[in-house]
């Protein structure tokens, strides 16, 4: 059933999934880490594959997606603790 409760649970689980991704073990491996300069040295900070970060307009879809994910992770770390606590207590007591 498409109730608000199920929507809430699904969105909470999805955000949990996004928050749990390990930064250096997983995201860096597949090249989705939030952008610091991956190559130390004198290489230009962006190449032609749409990886541009300094120029806002040429920022490709991938970069914006990465930015979105990292922003959600940074912002939702603390509130997720509270939300999860509330949901867990609720399910333990009244879940049934």
């Amino acid at each position, binding site marked *: 059933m*498409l*109730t*608000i409760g199920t929507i809430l649970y699904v969105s909470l689980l999805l955000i949990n999934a996004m928050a749990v991704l390990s930064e250096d073990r997983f995201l860096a491996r597949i090249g989705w880490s939030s952008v610091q300069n991956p190559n130390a040295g004198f290489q230009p900070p962006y190449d032609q594959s749409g990886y541009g970060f300094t120029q*806002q*307009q040429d*920022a490709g*879809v991938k970069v*914006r*997606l990465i930015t*979105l994910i990292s922003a959600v992770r940074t912002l939702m770390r603390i509130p997720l603790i509270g939300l999860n606590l509330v949901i867990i207590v609720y399910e333990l007591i009244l879940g049934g």
Partner: protein
Amino acid sequence: MASNYYSRSPPPLQHPVPTHPAFIPEPPSTPISPQGYQRFTSSPPNQQYAARSQYHAPFQPIPHHSPPTMQPQPQPHIQQHIPDFAAWGVNDTTAQFGMQLGHSAVAAGQDYVQKNFGGMIPVTMLKHHFNVSNSYVIRKLQLVIFPWRHKPWTRKVRRTEAGHTEWQPPRDDINSPDLYIPLMALVTYILVSAFQTGLQERFHPQILGSSATRALVVVLLDFLFVKCGCYLLNVQGTGQVVDLIAYGGYKFVGVILTLFAGLLKLGPTLYTLVFLYAFAANALFVLRSLRSVVLPETPANVGTVNPASRKRRIGFLFLEAVLQVVYMGILVRV
């Protein structure tokens, strides 16, 4: 005779002819609402009402479009609408005191709401979207049902006032999205789905709530998808939240048509045909409406979109139009 409330024996049989129309008490004018209280019914011409100070609200059209009998006259005196309590048998001073109390209570309540929640709801934008007329509603419904032959889909920009340009209100511009039709269509959808379950003898008051939830969730999902797509594709200045919600709300019109086809028991093939037609009409409507948001056409912005990005945006538009069938399918399953 001015008043018909005689406490003595009624006068001999003469039909009282009212010399002026029935008295409509004036709603309390508060200092918070910027344009005073807008009433779009005709009021008797000899009745004067308070038009409080005209704030320079960003939307000037609403005083301009009010019917001509209601020209707001700047009045020196403030409240003239004290009804004739003496005729109702209530003491005058008590009544006046009660009214003062009521006025101050209402003003205090509005003040509180304004201070705490004033910034959250974009009131002027909502007012703009509800500024519709009858002819607009009829033509827009025709457009939603039959969008194939409509030619210019761009919204008209209004003359710049104090330097900034704005969209014209829905009264003047058929292409402007409004919130009236989506809201009414949403309520009608809830009622029609409840009616259908009633005809199938499985009505339950809970169905009203679940139907409303389903409709709101579908609108929310649609809006989130469009917003997410606009962010990922770096669409500049991607319109307002309210506009996107308004565009998403037009699908209810097609859904209601499909539900009617089901109620009339036209048979499964005709029902599917109606559903597919409603989906196609809605898809085209969404496509054309969102095109002006996603793909810039004004000569100022055309240069900002390079060809690869342009193709991606067109693909995104098509995906959004096709997803309408999913949404409408969810909604039709009453």
